Each structure stands twice: as C-alpha cells, then as structure tokens.
C-alpha cells in the first residue's frame, strides 16, 4: 500500500509539472474505529476509511488549495483536483509576502509510531477493554459511558520542487471511561492514551474509577464557599491548560497578531515559576510526533520554557514568511509538548490523597469547556468536572460540587506554582473535527498551585 501511495503522489506531481503547475500535495488516510458507550450500552460502533488529498497550487505570490475525499483508484479524479487548484490560483490575489513552497531534499519515511497490533485491534477486544475497566462497578444507577477510539493515520507529501516524498504512518488509541449517576448527574472518569497495544491497561482505569466511585457514592457532597484555595490539577487539566497556552502563548503568529499574553520582548525573560520547563519534544513517541515538519525541517527537542524563562516563540512557515522570521520546524499538525517533572512523590490519586498536607487542597482532575476571556492577559475560564475532591488537611476527603475558576495562565504557572509530580502522565488531547490527528501532551501526574480563587460554586451537581 505504501508504494501505491508514493507512486500516486509521484504521478500527480508529474501531472502538475506537465501542466506547468507549481503544487504541493498532502495525502491523509485514516482508518478510524470508535466504540462509544452510554447508559451501559454500546451506543455507537463505527468505522470510517477516508482518504483526503489537499493540493496547494502556487503562482509566485499567489496560493490556492483544493481538497477532496477520494480513493487511490481515482487518479483521474485527483488530476482534476490539480486542474481545479491550478484554475483557482490564477484568480487568487497575490500575498504581500512570498510563500515558501516546500522542497524535500531527501525521501523520508517514518513508521516508528506504527504498531501493527494496535492497528489490528478487533471490535471484541475494544468491548473487552470496557468490560474489564468497569468490572463490578456498574449498578442500576451507576452507568458506563465512554469511548474507545483507535486508528491508523498515514500522511504523505510531495511537491513539484523535487521527486522526494515525506511519509508518516502511526497508530493510536484514546480511551475514556466514565461512570455516572443516572439521577444525581455526577460523573467520574479514567482515561488513557496508547501508541502501542501493549500500553493498554484497563485494570489501571478500573482502580482509579473504583477509588473515586467509593467517595462519590458514599460521601455527602458539599458546596464550597467562594474564596481562595490551594488547587492540585490532574493531568487532564494540566494538558488542557498547556493546550490553551499553545493558542495564546508561544505561537509567533498569535503574538504578532495581538493574540498572545507573551510579548515579543519577553524572549529570554522570566515569565513563569522556575519550576516550569516546557519542551516540544518529537522524540517522545507517546505524543504521536512528527520528526520532520511539513516543510521538510528535521525536528529536535525545542525548549519553550526553561526554569520559567521564555526561550522562543514557535513559528509556522506561513507566519514566518509573513513576518520575516526564521521558521522553527513547527509546520505540523500538532506539537509534542512535554512539561517537565518536579520532585513531588505520588503518581496516582490514591497516593496523592495519602500524602501529608498542611492545608486543604482542592483536587481538580479535569477542566470543562475552557475558553479565553482575555488573550492579552492569558485569562481563561473553565469549570471543574469528573471527580473533583477536597482533600482536607486532617486527612479526610470531601466531594465538592463543581466550581468555576477564571484565572490567568501567568497566575497559574507563576509564583503560585508550588510543586509538580516526579512522575509524568500522558493526556490524549485528540479531537477529530476533520481528519484524524492523534495528539497527546506529556505532563506531570499532578501539580499544585496555591491561592487560586474560585469564582462560582455550584449548589448541586
């Protein structure tokens, strides 16, 4: 199949050249499977096999693209796509900068993220995973929800500038298992991300669910008073905060357009706590990395924050072209963000709860519906969800109703950052609007931020 893909792209590039069309081709093939549960049944079991081809035509400073869902047997249809892109670019308007056409200087094949065992996982195995993850935990009131999403992604690129091709193939799985109360409307969650079948661990999810379930089923929930709390964020919350920072923090294009809380002159300056180390690290397979960007640049670990000092903005090629800066190898579908560890022991929720503490700690594992209130200040708002706990300093544990926090990222990751875990976790942030794009962030299992205000506190679930 790989050779057929490569040959098809070569044929298309040759066709474009024969028509005097300057073009870049982006081939995306997904074989996606999703088993979705709700109310303790499988509510949907689906698979989609889709091949997308994006053709970008260039004519000096003009650029236009044409995308199609197609099939490898439809070469004539794809050639018509080339004709369409070529016709569009004739009528496009010139940019006020010169867009870069990728030039691949060598053929690059990367299948290091592909695991045949995960790619071949069966419907029955997905179902068995769910059964093991919630074994003995469901009742008439406690219902299973969740997804087991897995698939294979193949990306291949060629341009008319050279005969060389870039080819990436990877496998991935994203699992989340939710147990919810049918009438009280609370939910607890356990999740995992996998790049290999051997990484699937339904027993670990079951342990986490059982621990949370014990509290949510038997403890009396409380409405927390508004005020300031020392908050421990779980890996999902940390991952979502970093994802937001990716949008309104260190992207060079966002900064230039006034959509970032980090100013151009803050490179080299202390922005966050000296405990904060963030790297874009494509050597971490857990992040489903791209080791070359789509312009052909090799990607190596790229420090973004070191000891809280901001090291560099990341630049997409198009932004780099527009603003006249050097690209940084970040023209990819997703980065490979890794937040460095700290020195706090405790890798699981059970261990966190058992750690001695001087103050009450509000544990927030998941931030729901985060949005940007003010990008220039890095101000975000979100609600807690899925199994928050108030860990009292006397060692007891209270189940709180959900709360809202409206805080700036500099406040969260600045001087109030108390500690980060020694152990890292992988949080899968994949979304599947459009083509499959498996994405994960590696973060400490927990981190604590002191003295953060909660601005709303629910009186019920």
């Amino acid at each position: 199949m790989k050779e057929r893909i490569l040959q098809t792209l070569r044929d298309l590039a040759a066709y474009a050249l024969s028509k005097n069309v300057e073009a870049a081709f982006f081939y995306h093939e997904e074989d996606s499977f999703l088993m979705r549960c709700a109310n303790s049944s499988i509510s949907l079991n689906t698979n989609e096999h889709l091949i997308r081809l994006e053709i970008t035509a260039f004519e000096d400073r003009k650029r236009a693209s044409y995308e199609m869902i197609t099939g490898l047997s439809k070469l004539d249809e794809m050639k018509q796509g080339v004709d369409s892109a070529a016709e569009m670019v004739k009528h496009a308007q010139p940019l006020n900068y010169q867009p870069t056409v990728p030039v691949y200087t060598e053929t690059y094949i990367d299948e290091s993220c592909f695991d045949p065992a995960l790619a071949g996982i069966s419907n029955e195995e997905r179902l068995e995973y769910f059964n093991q993850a919630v074994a003995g935990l469901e009742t008439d009131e406690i219902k299973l929800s969740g997804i087991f999403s897995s698939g294979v992604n193949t990306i291949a690129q060629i341009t008319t500038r050279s005969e060389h091709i870039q080819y990436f193939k990877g496998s991935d799985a994203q699992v989340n298992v939710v147990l919810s109360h049918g009438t009280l409307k609370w939910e607890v969650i356990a999740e995992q991300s996998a790049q290999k079948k051997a990484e699937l661990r339904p027993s670990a999810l079951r342990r986490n669910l059982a621990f949370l379930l014990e509290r949510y089923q038997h403890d009396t929930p409380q409405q927390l008073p508004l005020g300031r709390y020392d908050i421990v964020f779980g890996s999902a919350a940390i991952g979502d905060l970093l994802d937001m920072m990716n949008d309104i923090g260190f992207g060079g294009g966002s900064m230039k357009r006034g959509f970032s809380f980090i100013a151009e002159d803050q490179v080299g300056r202390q922005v966050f706590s000296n405990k904060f180390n963030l790297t874009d690290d494509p050597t971490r397979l857990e992040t489903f990395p791209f080791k070359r960007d789509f312009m052909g640049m090799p990607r190596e670990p790229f420090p973004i924050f070191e000891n809280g000092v901001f090291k560099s903005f990341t630049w997409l090629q198009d932004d780099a072209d527009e603003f006249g800066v050097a690209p940084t190898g970040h023209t990819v579908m997703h980065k490979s963000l890794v937040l460095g560890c700290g020195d706090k022991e405790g890798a699981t929720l059970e261990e966190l709860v058992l750690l001695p503490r001087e103050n009450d700690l509000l544990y927030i594992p998941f931030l729901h519906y985060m949005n940007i209130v003010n990008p220039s200040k890095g101000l975000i708002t979100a609600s807690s969800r899925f199994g928050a706990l108030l860990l009292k300093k006397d060692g007891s544990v209270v189940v709180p109703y959900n709360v809202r926090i409206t805080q700036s990222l500099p406040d969260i990751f600045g001087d109030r950052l108390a500690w980060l875990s020694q152990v890292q976790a992988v949080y899968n942030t994949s979304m599947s609007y459009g083509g499959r794009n498996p994405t994960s962030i590696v973060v400490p299992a927990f981190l604590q931020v002191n003295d953060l205000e909660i601005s709303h506190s629910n009186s019920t679930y």
Partner: protein
Amino acid sequence: MIKKIQKQIEHLKAAGASYVDARWYPVEETNHLVMWNGNLKTAASSRESGVGIRVLYKGAWGFSASSDVGNLGALFEKALDNARVAAERVTVPIRLAGKESIQASFNSPNRIDPFSVPLTEKIAFLKELDEKLNRPGVDQRVCEMIFMRKQIIYLDSEGSEIEKNIIEVFPSMQVMGLDSRGESHSRKFSPPLSGATRGWETLDPHLFSENAGRIVREMNQVLVAEACPKGVRSVILLPGIMYLQTHETIGHALELDRILGYELAYAGGSFVKLSDFGSLAYGSPKLTARADATLPNSPGSFGYDDDGVPAQDNLLIDKGLLVGAITSRQMVEEANARAGKTIFSNSSGANRATAFYRVPIERMTNINIDPGSDGTLDDIVKSTEKGIILDGDKSWSIGSNREQFHFATDIGWLVEDGNITNVVKNSTYKGETVTFYNSLSSVGDQSTWEVRCVDSCGKGQPNQIMQLGHGVPVCRFDNVTIGE
C-alpha cells in the same frame, strides 16, 4: 446507485437487521476564503462524496462509511458486523418512534448558487470589505466567506426516499486593535438573515459597508474605554450575544440525548430531568422558546432530518414553562420508556449528521426566542435603572450540565437611570441558567428580533460540526453578576 443501495438495504434486513438507512452524498462542496490584513490567506475549495450506512440489529447501532462506493456490499456488511458486536452490550434495546414513509425532496431557497459565482468576484467582494475596514486604530482585519453545497439522498428500510439539495452562505468580518496597555480588543459583524433565500444574493454590499464603519467606530471606542465594573446589574443582551446565550443554555440543554446521558463522556449532560417537562419554570413568563426548522432562509432548516422525519416548529418553553426538547426517533422512545409515560408524542425531526461519514445525532434546528411586548431597544433602555448593554461573542464557557455559564462580550454600554452613559471594555457576565432565565424582565418586540447563524456548532464523538440558526430579540435580565 439508488437501486443498488435499496438492494443492499433489503439484503441486511434479510440478514436480521431490524432497520437500515443509508445517506448517499453524490456531492458535497465547500469554498472558504479568508482575507487577513489584505492578504488572501485562504482560498480553499473541497469536494467529497460517499455513503454512510446505519444498521439496527438486536437493539444496537452499527455504522460504516466510505468514499469508495465500489463495493457497497462490503460496506453494508461492515455496518452490520459493527452492530452485531454492539449488540453484545445492550441494556435497553434501541427502538425507533414511528414515522411516515416519505418520498420527497427539499431544496434550500436560493436565487444565485454561490458556486456559480466566479472566484474573482468573491475576492473583489472581500477586497472591498477589507479596504473599508482599513482605518486608524485597526491593527488586524479579517474578512471571511464560507460557501457550502450538499446533495444528500436518504433511503431507509421503511420505504422512505428523500433527496435534499442545500446551499449555505456564511460571511463575516472582524476588526482587532490594541489599547494603550497592549491588550487586544475586537468587534465583528455577521449579517442577520433576512429575506426568503440563502444564496449569494443575500450578500448585501450596502449592509456590509454600513456595518464596517460601525464596527471600526465601536472598536475604537472600546480601545479608550474604562474596564467593565464589577457588580450586579441588569444586562441587556443584543442579538449578537443573545443568540449564543440561547444556543448554549437553552439549545444544548434541551437536546434529548444529552438529557438522557448520551454525551456524558464528552460534551456533558443537562441539568434538565425528564420529570421537569411540564413542570419546570425554566424562565419567567416572558420567555417563549421554540425549535423552528421551517424558517426558509436559515441553515437550521433542512426539510427532513437524517431519520427521514419532516421539519417542524415545536415549542420548547411556553411562557416560562418547559414543554419540549430537541429529539430524534430513538431518544423519544427511550425517554418515554424511562419516564413510564408519554412525554414526547413523536420525533421533533432534529437528528442530523455533518457528513456522510458521521452518524446522525440530536442537533439544534433554529432555536428561537419569540419576540415580546416590551418595545424597542430604546424602550428597554429607558426602563432600566442600572444596567449594561452587551454585544459580540468574545468568550463562552458553560458548566458540564449547562447549569451555569460565563460569557465575555466585545463591547458594553453602561446604562444609568434609563440613559446610555459610556462604553466599557472587557465586559463579562455570569449566572446560573434557571435563575438567569427567571430574571428575564423585558423582551424586545419584532423590531429587535434577528436570525443569527451558527456555522460551526461542535458536538458528538466522533466530533461533528453543524450549521443552524437562532432567531432572538433583545432581552433584559435583572440582578446579573458582571465584570468577573
């Protein structure tokens, strides 16, 4: 092709499927143009075709989709296989509410197909807008047009055959500027829907020209404005934010699949319980909301949903009382069974999929608030002692059961003793859904009522985006916390 699909449907029925449907998209096209600071950053078109198969077997769904229709038999078999496995974990077998077998077609009303308009003409339109926005104070200017065209042929094992041809046009423009502290502020414009059609002809250059001047002027006012005060005031929501308030806290909250827990692993649930229908005072008596899929010019109108159920106009909230939901054939049956009584007499025709390769789920149609009898915006302002007028959707965040929310808007105008005083920046408001709607104290008349489009409502796993509309008047809510 239709005959081949019908043959496969019959084959699966013979193999034990209790229900089968297929959505064949001979063609779906989009055209997306973005001009940013005069640069045509995006000039993109797309085209796709394919078929999606949904099979009900022993009370469980299976789904399969492909752009390759060369081996339909294998595709249908795969959908049945998926359903067979799903049937191994069924607690309550799925049943579908009854419907008529329908042979029909729907064509969205258009005078000019946007795909027949030359690219140069579209770019000229954007360029003219861009030049109008290129004024002092404006740091970033973005003009965008999205065009969609879908041909969908729906067939099911109950004998329905429906063809839909739908065209949508989504234009918008936005300006951004930096205040003296380097903070970014924006103002945007998307035209409300008017007239009876939804093609290229709806792009009114005069309307865009007038509003280009307005949004630049208002953004410059925001750049030098004081910050929104913290406190409790009446909030007067203009349609540019009222549409989103309605979307997030009435529309999503009343999707029956959310209410029944089918989105708990992802988008969340709803505070609404089945026992609330007919009894919950969702809002004050001034609140009447409906799901109206019959507005001719809105993307929330599509003729027939992807269950093959005709579009309808249904009450959701009647003078404050919760009476209806956004429903599909499956969820109606399940809700009635769980409640032990008939809450919903039939599907409201709101089951839609974003593409051939996604399964239909409950989606909003046009979730509207009826106009009221409290006069014009001026009338509402004059009767407001201490308030703030808010417009422009800057940020929105909603609790997982849609029970509480926090919104930020592009602009605010303070109101003191019935008069508009000054513009404020960084305006926000928050509240709890039921408390908020019960504080609804004024609803503007027809002169304030506008239909706003949503071009990308996200929901579901695998994720889907959907297009819909909201017809809303100016509304005033009392005792609302602002400025946080």
